[in-house]
């Protein structure tokens, strides 16, 4: 099913999404990948605030290439989500409503997705030039010294993604390949 959704994303909207849905996301999302997640984890351990409120927000696992003059961002496709598996459950428990990345997640993430009524989306890996067209503005809001790994606030318009894990616990990576398997 094709749907247009807003970001931040309410748990009500998340609850309506099902694995296999093709969505277009419009609104505000945040980027964070390996190094930023490590810093956020350290901030939590020391009781310091995070760069943005997790509640209802979507994190895009992405580190862009540099923007050319006059453009908001460079190439901007998803990175492998499993590297953030260690950190994701705590953020989901703080209200994070969605994650955009690519590739399989751990059982602990899947359980946290179900427990919190959140969603894991896949964007097409290796389509960074195409996906950059859905980003209308980008601003570094934390950890600037991390370069491409800094936390950025992105404004996106009709950003294309596919629901891989839904709040009911379905995993499209497990179900979709069965239809075309002929071993």
């Amino acid at each position, binding site marked *: 099913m094709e749907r247009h959704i807003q970001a931040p994303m309410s748990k009500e909207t998340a609850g309506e999404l099902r694995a296999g849905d093709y969505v277009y996301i419009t609104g505000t999302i945040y980027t964070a990948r390996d190094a930023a997640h490590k810093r956020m984890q350290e901030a939590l351990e020391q009781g310091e605030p995070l760069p943005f409120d997790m509640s209802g927000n979507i994190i895009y696992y992405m580190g862009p290439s540099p923007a*050319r003059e006059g453009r908001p961002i460079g*190439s901007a496709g998803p990175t492998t989500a499993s590297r953030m598996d260690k950190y994701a459950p705590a953020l989901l428990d703080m209200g994070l409503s969605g994650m955009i990345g*690519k590739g399989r997640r751990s059982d602990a993430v899947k359980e946290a997705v179900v427990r919190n009524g959140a969603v894991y989306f896949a964007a*097409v890996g290796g389509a960074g030039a*195409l996906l950059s067209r859905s980003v209308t503005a980008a601003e570094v809001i934390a950890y600037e010294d991390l*370069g*491409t790994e800094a936390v950025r606030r992105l404004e996106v318009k009709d950003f294309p993604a596919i629901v891989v894990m839904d709040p009911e616990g379905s995993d499209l990576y497990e179900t979709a*390949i069965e239809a*075309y398997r002929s071993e």
Partner: protein
Amino acid sequence: MKGYYGQMRTIDVADVTRHIGEMCIEANHFLTADMAEAMETAAESERAPLGKQILCQLQDNLKIAGEDRIPICQDTGMAVIFMEIGQDVHFVGGSLEAAVNEGVRQGYTEGYLRKSVVADPLIRENTKDNTPAVIHYEMTEGDRLRITVAPKGFGSENMSRIFMLKPADGMEGVKNAILTAVKDAGPNACPPMVVGVGIGGTFEKCALLAKKALTRPVNERSAIPYVRELEEEMLERINRTGIGPGGLGGTTTALAVNINTYPTHIAGLPVAVNICCHVNRHAVRIL
């Protein structure tokens, strides 16, 4: 040694720097003709509707990358560089290694490419210019320098494997190793993939064979008859796994399986599987 130096061809390392800088930018914006053709064919032949949609998006992505000068993928890789140096070449003008890294620095800085290299694997501070490159030197006959720049993304690099098989594992063992690596990689390696395989040699030699296999055109099969058959059989079997484009189901999981072999020890059968995503980039120039 009379007349020996008269037969040497001189190459200024400044030329090496300039070419490598240009090649880093070229490889990150344009696929080679064989890869572009394989991607186009895949978009036509894929049977899964979602898989076909993804492959068509990747066609659009390639077009936008070239026209708007945006890297095909934001992971513009760690620069892997093969330097095949004719034994009659004499380099002048400074350190060759420094010249190669200067080319990478210029290409990644001037070409708006992402800086993805950390100076130490555990301390992890970004070098901010994507250096150093991983450089492989090889001596060849003649007086030419053949440079291959192959930026390697780590979504797929992380899913690569080495198997130290026993001779008794034989052909079946090799086939199982390749299928295991591909299935474990699944959606993480951005399929459709190109699968580079090295069989034989030693622990490090088979890894290098696999890496170099990824630079062979995807429409070119091995000259060794049994290897050619193995490449064709493995491609067919990989495409029957159902993994498909983006790992979301389909009939196109790999575009090619390129296998290189080398003599090995009586006690061993090393197999390396180096997986590359559909952005299997390289630029080649001969100086």
